[in-house]
């Protein structure tokens, strides 16, 4: 057992050293700079990702009038927030929000992976493009959600939204009970990409 861990540790150190050598060489030759890696990663770490969706939903939870505007005209409502440029453009330009309610639960699926509203939700999980997931979610959403650990009461309607090149949907989950005293920032931490896809609900911490 110890040997295996040792082996893993060595391999980690070996790969790390190879990467350091490669980066140093590329910088020395003027191919990239010491900022290149951070610049590229900044896009995923601070500009486009699930943290944007969490901000949008937290705002909707705190401000019912904003929630109404968000559902009525999603790009326009998102433009009110101080989010990175490009949120309402490029991949996000045809974004539409659908809100869960006491009688309705929404689920988004897509027949093409590029339809995922990733400026808001981040990059899709591996199963999202799985043909079985897609076809079953369209046909028997209640059973599929149950397999995800989400039992939707029989009395509650489930609406399935198929994203397309024209419209990319995301879900505004219900605000969990017992979160009345939380700030918007604290609320953001409760909002997962899965809840915004409708395969989960938001829960109080």
């Amino acid at each position, binding site marked *: 057992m110890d040997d*295996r861990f040792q*082996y*893993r540790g060595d*391999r*980690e150190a070996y*790969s*790390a*050293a*190879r*990467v*350091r*050598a*490669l*980066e*140093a*060489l*590329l910088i020395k*030759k003027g*191919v*990239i700079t010491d900022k*290149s*890696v*951070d*610049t*590229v*990663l900044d*896009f*995923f*770490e601070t500009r*486009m*990702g*699930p943290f944007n969706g969490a901000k949008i939903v937290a705002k909707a939870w705190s401000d019912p009038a904003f929630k109404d505007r968000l559902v009525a005209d999603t790009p326009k409502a998102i433009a009110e927030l101080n989010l990175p440029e*490009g949120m309402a*453009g*490029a*991949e996000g*330009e045809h974004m539409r929000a659908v809100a869960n309610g006491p009688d309705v639960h929404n689920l988004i699926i897509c027949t093409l*992976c*590029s339809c*995922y509203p*990733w*400026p808001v*939700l*981040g*990059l*899709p*999980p*591996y199963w*999202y*493009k799985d043909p079985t997931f897609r076809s079953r979610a369209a046909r028997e959403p209640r059973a599929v959600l149950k397999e995800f650990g989400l039992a939707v009461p029989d009395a509650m309607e489930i609406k399935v939204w198929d994203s397309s090149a024209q419209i990319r949907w995301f879900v505004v989950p219900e605000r969990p009970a017992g979160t009345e005293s939380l700030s918007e920032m604290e609320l953001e931490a409760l909002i*997962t*990409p899965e809840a915004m896809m409708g395969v989960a609900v938001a829960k109080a911490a």
Partner: protein
Amino acid sequence: MLTQYEGFAMTEMMGKPDNPPRANGSLCFSSEWERTAFGMALALAKQGYFEWDDFRDELIAEIKTWEDAHPVAHSSWNYYDRWLAALEKATVKTGILDADEIKAAFAA
């Protein structure tokens, strides 16, 4: 329409054999070197040193070679090890670096 290169590059990989590990909608790096290897490949493609698709072909080939040589779910699997091997090959094939130069830098 302005599409960010980074976004285009990632979208291309989704659902394909070379699609990168993700957690909670974010790219998932288990250490700093993985993040650096990822960033270098994307930065080089973005600057036009090689086509993103050509790098991906190298990556897919590296993954296939590894899978053919190891049982499924072997514990030594690491996506970014394959990524690094593909990146080194891509820099040599496109003439950015030569193989001896890489070896010498690593030995230094």
